[in-house]
């Protein structure tokens, strides 16, 4: 970099070892795939610049000898020219390129979920004790009739004439969201597939095709068709329990995806059906959808290919005209719409999109539910909220704002060990999640990881049951869109109006 005067940036993290505690066992050296530690004789040397704060070394240090500090070097504090802004400038002044970043938005904006309070029963209605009485979380995803038709049989009995279209039944309103094989490892996929089977839900494949290792769990898998059509053929479509058409992603609305050639290993190339080492480029639009009337055509083409037996989902990113988008998609024949808020995760997205484009999922779900009801389309589709669903309370709030269910993804990764360090793009994930390097992938035991993911969903399910019981609600469809059971805490009047939620005290 002789033609650049910017030099090196201040350290992002500083790693230190308490030499009194350290017994030079070398576990940190073995565990750190980024090369922070090096054994030099009987001393362990540290290169903090390579650290990603993945905590792998800290987790595996038997003596708690390793300590990590973020931003050990201060910039002059400035409310406008903050560190991130300055470092982006230095980066782009050096490279002249678009900055890519891993995982979801880091924009320091208020989380609406945190400012919505849930309700509980006191004296006018009794809480339900879910230990003693049923609280139903069972959810059916798919089209529902808006009214029923009956016919009279010859013997005078009345029978149902309305035919129900296929729905997916889930025992808890939590699905495992789409992350592709390629972006994450086969063991991570296997763990989620087994967890989905154990807790009675489904996992999404993302746009990476379906590895034969997941065939035994295919009844618990939602296969995704994205604009790149990687791994998509009639066999793939027919294996899934449902098919999701990915039209957009919350982390990067309006642009496509890009799996770099380095991550297209032999196995990844097989499931994506592209040559090893080639870039997998997903265009921004589906090139057979240039106008809204093309969407029903794609929906029907997939239904035709699968004999009209499988629910079709569509996933869109939450943007300004979300209500209009949702109403348009609801008319296309899809059975469910997943809306991905601007905090949605990603392996990699341009920083400027991740932090600046889109709207929050709380608003997107509320406006979608309201618009669908207004247009008489609510039963046409189920709504799935996604984009940083972090805990069971988020699930409750999303459903009370109008969702039928949620997708979790980052939370599921965290359940497998992910520390949300945001370096997925490096392909060196020491937890064996966002990597294809076999020695790293082997670190993730799918049996152990699946149990952890199942535990997380089970725990959230218990909490949701308790929260619903406390609110006196015994079936999840009675929580859906029940904004009366929410109150906004320090949200402005305009936003409360959009959410159709009253302020606290009202």
């Amino acid at each position, binding site marked *: 970099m002789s033609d650049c005067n910017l030099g090196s940036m201040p350290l992002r993290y500083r790693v230190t070892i308490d030499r009194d505690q350290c017994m030079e066992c070398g576990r940190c050296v073995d565990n750190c795939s980024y090369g922070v530690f090096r054994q030099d004789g009987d001393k362990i040397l540290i290169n903090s610049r390579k650290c990603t704060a993945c905590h792998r070394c800290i987790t595996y240090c038997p003596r708690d000898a390793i300590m990590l500090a973020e931003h050990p070097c201060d910039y002059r504090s400035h409310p406008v020219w903050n560190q991130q802004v300055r470092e982006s400038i230095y980066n*782009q002044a050096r*490279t002249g*390129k678009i*900055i890519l970043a891993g995982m979801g938005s880091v924009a320091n904006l208020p989380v609406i979920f945190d400012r919505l309070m849930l309700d509980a029963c006191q004296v006018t209605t009794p809480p339900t004790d879910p230990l003693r009485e049923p609280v139903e979380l069972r959810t059916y995803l798919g089209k529902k009739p808006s009214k029923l038709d009956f016919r009279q049989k010859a013997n005078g009995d009345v029978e149902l004439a309305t035919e129900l279209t296929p729905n997916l039944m889930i025992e808890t309103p939590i699905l495992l969201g789409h992350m592709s094989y390629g972006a994450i490892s086969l063991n991570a996929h296997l763990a989620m597939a087994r967890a989905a089977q154990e807790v009675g839900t489904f996992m999404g494949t993302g746009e990476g095709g379906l590895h034969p290792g997941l065939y035994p769990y295919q009844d618990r898998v939602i296969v995704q068709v994205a604009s790149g059509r990687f791994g998509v*053929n009639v066999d793939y479509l027919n294996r899934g329990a449902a098919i999701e058409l990915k039209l957009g992603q919350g982390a990067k609305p309006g642009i496509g995806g890009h799996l770099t050639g380095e991550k297209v290993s032999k196995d990844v190339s097989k499931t994506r059906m*592209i*040559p090893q080492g080639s870039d997998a480029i997903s265009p921004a639009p589906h090139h057979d959808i240039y106008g809204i009337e093309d969407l029903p055509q794609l929906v029907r*083409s997939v239904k035709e290919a699968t004999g009209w037996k499988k629910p079709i989902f569509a996933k869109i990113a939450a943007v300004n005209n979300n209500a209009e988008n949702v109403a348009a998609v609801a008319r296309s024949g899809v059975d469910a719409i997943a809306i991905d808020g601007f905090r949605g995760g990603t392996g990699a997205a341009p920083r400027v999109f991740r932090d600046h484009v889109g709207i929050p999922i709380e608003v997107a779900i509320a406006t979608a539910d309201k618009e669908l009801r207004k247009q008489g389309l609510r039963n046409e589709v189920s709504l799935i909220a996604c984009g940083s669903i972090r805990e069971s309370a988020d699930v409750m709030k999303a459903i009370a704002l109008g969702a039928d269910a949620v997708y979790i993804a980052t939370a599921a990764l965290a359940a497998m060990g992910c520390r949300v360090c945001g370096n997925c793009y*490096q392909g060196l994930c020491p937890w064996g999640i966002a990597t294809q390097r076999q020695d790293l992938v082997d670190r993730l035991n799918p049996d152990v990881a699946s149990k952890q993911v199942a535990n997380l969903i089970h725990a959230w399910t218990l909490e949701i049951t308790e929260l619903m019981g406390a609110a006196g609600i015994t079936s999840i469809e009675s929580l859906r869109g029940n904004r009366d059971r929410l109150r906004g805490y320090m949200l402005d009047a305009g936003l409360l109006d959009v959410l159709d939620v009253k302020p606290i005290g009202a």
Partner: protein
Amino acid sequence: MAKQITIDAKGVDCTSLNQQIREALKDGADEVVVNNVLGQRFIGDGLRGNATICVHGVAGGDLAMFMSGPTVVVHGNAEHAPGNTMDSGKVVIHGSAGDAVAHSMRGGKVFVRGDIGYRGGIHMKQYETQRPILVVGGSAQMFLGEYMAGGLLIVLGLDGVMKAREIGSGIHGGEIVVRGDVDDTCLAAGAKKVPLTDEDRARIVPVLREFAEDFGFDPEPLVNADYTRIVPASARPFAGKYTWE
């Protein structure tokens, strides 16, 4: 003895028509003749096997989408995206076709005797033995082979002027072969022209012969014509665009 089943598509909606075709295949038909087709979509969608479906009329959009094996012959024109995400098999269109022909096609052949619209061969891709082939007898429109990631796309320009411009925009795999010369101004960023070697010619000649045979004309002038070959300038067209946080 080949079993032939005939279906009259007049006034039949596309789902019912496709059900009838599926039934015919289930009944063991080797050839299904579908008459009076007028815009019904998804003919051959997701079909497997090796039967032949002869379509008389105007085939609607997404002809042979996700198809895996059969042959579809259209005596007439086709709407947009015939061969969409097709796996294997063959589509022969005696007329012309709309936009996005062979979109994301991953295997098999699509032959169009007439012209195709915009974005022909967009995002065609190949994998191991699967190598999709699109041959156009007439002309193609702009953005030919956009995002192309694999396969072979041949445009013969048999009916006069060749309209394609912005050829190979974002191409990062596969090859586009155009009869005659292609002006540099017609190439998009990421695409480059290379001479057609004898090896290349040897590779495309069987395809040209098959095409000529399907449409009943003399292959020799095609076999001996001059061609321009267009390939990716880089397998990583976007690699230089990004830096990491």
